[in-house]
């Protein structure tokens, strides 16, 4: 054979050719399927938001139910000022739509490291994020009973990877109407239990402690709980702490918005 298959030059050429071919094929696949995947992700997001207000939807009716229950989508900034609001139909492709705000991406890109560095120090966290131009989405829903419910997306870190969820607040902006959580890679049977209803049901009817040092606590297994706390998951301490941290950190931003709203009403 003319070509020496085992020469260094051939090996390099082969590798380069392989990478180019494979890269092109994968890029093509990813791009051609992106629209469908985005649509699926949007459906999932709607299902999760509806789940937080106790409406169970599946992929076939998520769009319709979302349009029915979610009456207003608001984007607020870090100081709780309203940036934009819309009630039009959801367009996942419209970047200005509060629905399109990627809270997970924001968390990964800036909030995560800042929150770690601040270590619970609210002022330090606010200072670190002030130049990041972050927006936070808020979904106002009206239930069948005519109740106004605010659904807030929360994102944080568990033991192995990201955790996220939605917390629904009642009109008084302190009572929790419902919550749901999900995770990427928490331990099955331990941290992964945060997505189960036995855990999320405990949040219903609990209140945020506006005056206290922590708005809400997820306590370590067995500790007595009051109306501002729930029992965490035994064996899932770090995941439970992550739930605690993401709720407190995120809801503080929204409380500033709620305060300005109530002040405006008076």
């Amino acid at each position, binding site marked *: 054979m003319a070509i020496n*298959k085992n020469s260094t030059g051939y090996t390099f050429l082969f590798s380069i050719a392989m990478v180019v071919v494979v890269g092109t094929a994968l890029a093509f696949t990813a791009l051609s399927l992106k629209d469908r995947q985005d649509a*699926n992700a949007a459906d999932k997001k709607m299902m999760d938001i509806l789940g937080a207000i106790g409406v169970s939807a599946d992929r076939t009716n998520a769009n319709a139910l979302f349009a029915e229950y979610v009456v207003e989508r608001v984007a607020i900034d870090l100081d709780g000022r309203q940036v934009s609001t819309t009630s039009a139909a959801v367009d996942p492709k419209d970047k200005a739509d509060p629905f399109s705000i990627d809270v997970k991406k924001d968390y990964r890109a800036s909030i995560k490291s800042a929150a770690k560095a601040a270590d619970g120090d609210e002022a330090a966290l606010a200072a670190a994020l002030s130049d990041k131009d972050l927006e936070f989405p808020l979904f106002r829903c009206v239930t069948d009973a005519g109740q106004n419910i605010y659904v807030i997306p929360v994102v944080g870190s568990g033991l192995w990877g990201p955790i996220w969820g939605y917390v629904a607040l009642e009109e008084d902006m302190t009572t929790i109407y419902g919550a749901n959580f999900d995770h990427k890679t928490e331990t099955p049977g331990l941290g992964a239990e945060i997505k189960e209803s036995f855990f999320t049901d405990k949040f219903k009817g609990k209140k945020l402690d506006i005056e206290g040092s922590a708005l809400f606590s997820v306590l370590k297994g067995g500790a007595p709980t009051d109306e501002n706390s729930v029992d965490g998951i035994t064996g899932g301490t770090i995941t439970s702490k992550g739930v605690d941290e993401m709720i407190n950190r995120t809801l503080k931003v929204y409380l500033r918005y709620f305060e300005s709203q109530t002040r405006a009403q008076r």
Partner: protein
Amino acid sequence: MSTETAAATAKKESLFSKKNRKLLVDPLDDSNPITVQVLGICSALAITVQLQQAVIMSLSVLFVMIGGNVIVSLLRNMIPDRIRIIVQLVVVASLVIIVDQVLKAFQPDISEKLSVFVGLIITNCIIMGRLEAFALGNKPGPSFLDAIGNAMGYAWILLAVSIVREVFGSGAISLPGMGQVKFLPTEWFMSEGGFYENNNLMILPPMALITVGIIIWIQRSRNQALIEEN
């Protein structure tokens, strides 16, 4: 057999000769990747709670297996020896990523349930094993048959285990696109005042191992040649 088909078979170097048939049939029983070679067992244990997951997983493995075997077989005279494992990995990994992307686009719910296990097809010993042991030294035709044989050998165990586990664990059968079909009348269940209760142990991981063990037991009592001498 008519002369025409006989001629066609001969021209293809008899794709269905006895040797090639063996490639297809052997992995189903005598050299089954899961029950005899005990490869790819972790995914077999993890995703057999529901039939629909097992079906999608089997199809994914079938696709990756055929693609990998045929591509590596076609390239077998071009792949530099020193980087052959890397080349095999790249081929398998690319195919797996394609499968994962397609599932995310067309079967998002099942994709979510299979989660990491689609990605872990990359490290499935069955696939790497067949590429290294067979495709690297054989023509695309036999490699194709070998891929189907091994993927089906993997698939039927997965399907059998998941049918047992879903029927006894959830009292239902699920297929992709159909959702879960409960075939027992609800009034039979104890919670409704009946006499029947689902066996929760079936849903838990140990029962997958036990079910695979029972299949191995049946297989070896049928086929004594598989029993190792001590």
